[in-house]
């Protein structure tokens, strides 16, 4: 009942060739993006990748140098921020310190929706109930905890039922436990209000758990767009592979390409079968062979006959405990590979032991070596 009361339809947001520079620094470079109505989309990237600039362009705090922003098919180029009908949650919450919680939440109603007193009061109460803060409405922001301020900021952003909600690293200031709880709450609120959300974060796990769609940004451009799962399983380049989760990016040389399979040489050692390259590649080209650490299968070398060894052979260099898994660093020639094994399997691997590493062919991917992703210094195994 409460959910239907606050429900709205989300706006479709389209960015067309959007560019913005600060002096000689290009912050956003020809960005094109289509956010379907009602989607929760995250802009994910390291600091300086242009995600906050993109958000500020959508909000109207910045004017693009080139390109256009369409909200519901209408260009907002000439619309000032206060007429864009957007809600926004800021990194530092930015609650008005001289207003009570109720006055903060009611602010957008006073400014834009010319509602009757009773209707306003009802809406504020509805929003406060949604974020579970009804009992604190007479408090001032400084009297609230970080998590409570965060919820007030959500309520203020949503009270006028905007069709688009922008969030700028809203959970950055909270501790881990609270952050996870707020992630779930924000998801729930998004589901119940139905507005389109553009969420900026540099935290890849936050983007993966919360979003319908993730836009990975790198050096002012989009590195890849996709569902969290698609990005994790099928990164398009070394940067995305490296930025999302743990990954092995093994420098390799393509030996043979075929329609269904290709073969690569790692260093000057084994020739390994890999799935066909998702990019134009010819024999002799350099590439990265990408495998997630959890997709690696490890066997003690002593338990495998030399003639049966289909994978790479390496030496365990490091073993660290991470609660649910053990992480291993394994030296293979000059490369160091990362692997994860479940707790109960770990007994058979000790530092200094030889292990055989293998993976199923479709767990691996070939990524272009010339990507604007991981630079050469970090192109090894990370």
């Amino acid at each position: 009942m409460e959910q239907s009361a606050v429900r709205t339809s989300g706006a479709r947001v389209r960015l067309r060739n959007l560019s913005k520079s600060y002096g000689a620094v290009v912050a956003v470079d020809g960005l094109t993006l289509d956010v379907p109505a009602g989607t929760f989309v995250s802009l994910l990237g390291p600091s300086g990748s242009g995600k906050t600039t993109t958000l500020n362009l959508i909000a109207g705090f910045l004017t693009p140098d080139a390109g256009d922003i369409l909200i519901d098919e209408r260009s907002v180029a000439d619309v000032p921020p206060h007429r864009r009908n957007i809600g926004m949650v800021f990194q530092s919450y930015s609650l008005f310190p001289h207003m009570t919680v109720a006055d903060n939440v009611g602010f957008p109603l006073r400014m834009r929706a010319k509602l009757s007193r009773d209707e306003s009061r009802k809406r504020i109460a509805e929003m406060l109930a949604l974020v579970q803060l009804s009992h604190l409405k007479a408090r001032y922001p400084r009297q609230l905890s970080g998590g409570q301020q965060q919820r007030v900021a959500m309520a203020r952003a949503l009270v006028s039922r905007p069709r688009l909600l922008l969030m700028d690293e809203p959970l950055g200031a909270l501790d881990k436990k609270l952050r996870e709880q707020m992630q779930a709450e924000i998801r729930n609120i998004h589901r119940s209000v139905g507005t389109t959300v553009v969420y900026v974060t540099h935290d890849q796990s936050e983007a993966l758990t919360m979003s319908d769609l993730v836009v990975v940004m790198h050096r002012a451009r989009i590195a890849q767009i996709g569902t969290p799962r698609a990005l994790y399983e099928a990164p398009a380049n070394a940067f995305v592979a490296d930025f999302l989760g743990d990954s092995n990016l093994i420098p390799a040389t393509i030996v043979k390409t075929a329609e269904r399979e290709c073969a690569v040489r790692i260093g000057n050692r084994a020739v390994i079968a890999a799935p066909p390259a998702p990019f134009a590649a010819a024999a002799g080209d350099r590439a990265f062979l990408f495998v997630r650490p959890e997709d690696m299968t490890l066997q003690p070398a002593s338990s495998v006959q030399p003639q049966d060894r289909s994978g790479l052979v390496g030496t365990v260099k490091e073993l660290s405990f991470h609660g649910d898994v053990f992480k291993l660093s394994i030296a293979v020639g000059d490369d160091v590979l990362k692997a994860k094994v479940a707790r109960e399997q770990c007994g058979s691997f000790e530092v200094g032991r030889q292990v055989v590493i293998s993976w199923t062919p479709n767990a691996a991917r070939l990524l272009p070596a010339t990507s604007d992703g991981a630079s050469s210094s970090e192109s090894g195994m990370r």
Partner: protein
Amino acid sequence: MTAIAGHTTAPPRMAASSRQRIIPALLLMPCLAWISFFFLLPLALMCWRSFAAKGYSFAAYTVLFTSPLYTKVMLTTVKTASIATVIALILAYPVAYVLTISGGFRRALILTFVFIPYWVDIIVRTFSWLILLGDNGLINKLLMATGIVHTPLELLYNSFSVLIAMVQILLPLTIIILFGAMLRIDRTLIAAAKIHGAGSWQAFRTVFFPLSLPGVYGAGLLVFVLSLGFYVTPALLGSPRQTMIAQTIMVEASELLDWGQASAAGLVLLIITTLIAAIYNRYFSLDRLWGGSDA
């Protein structure tokens, strides 16, 4: 924990802590000696004299609070100081606001222009008003040359000339204090107001202005206290009707040689200004004026 540790190693810690106390005291000593000799001692003398000169009685204070002359001078002082403060605040606010929202070069440029008169001596500035406002001064000459008036306007030796000069002297300080207070207002609050439906004027009215008020009160108080003690400006630019308390004290001391009366008046002025500062400190916390914590 520390208490126990301190106990077991008592002798060296004692030495260390007493040294820790002595060094700051030594460093403060020259300054304290200076203040004691040139400020506290004269103040005590002044206090003693205000009673002693009148045969060890409150006579000087009785005169202060009963004589119509002092009542009138006090009223004039408070009235002049209040008006000057309000005008200074009204004129300084927009300048401080523009300083707050401008960046880099423009801010530096405005600050320079604000400070140039501040670096000029008060007496020089006051005399320059004599030149500007006199019957043969620049303003009257211009007005007559352009035919706007035919006889020179009486711009000098009245409350207009006193106020205009006082405000001019007070403005740089007022602007700087307001600017300091405004800088501490979080600019993203304005962005938050705008994205949630407030136009520029509404964002200013509902968010920026209310948040700037503590700074306005603080600046007002400081400027008011400062204006209470003005001497040169009303003396040079005012008529006897604009006499302020500092001038009266001067006359008592240097012309009537009634040092007892002058001391009493000086002390009362000091007590009033200290009281105002104390009230402010109680309610607005004085160090906030100088960029201390907002807590």
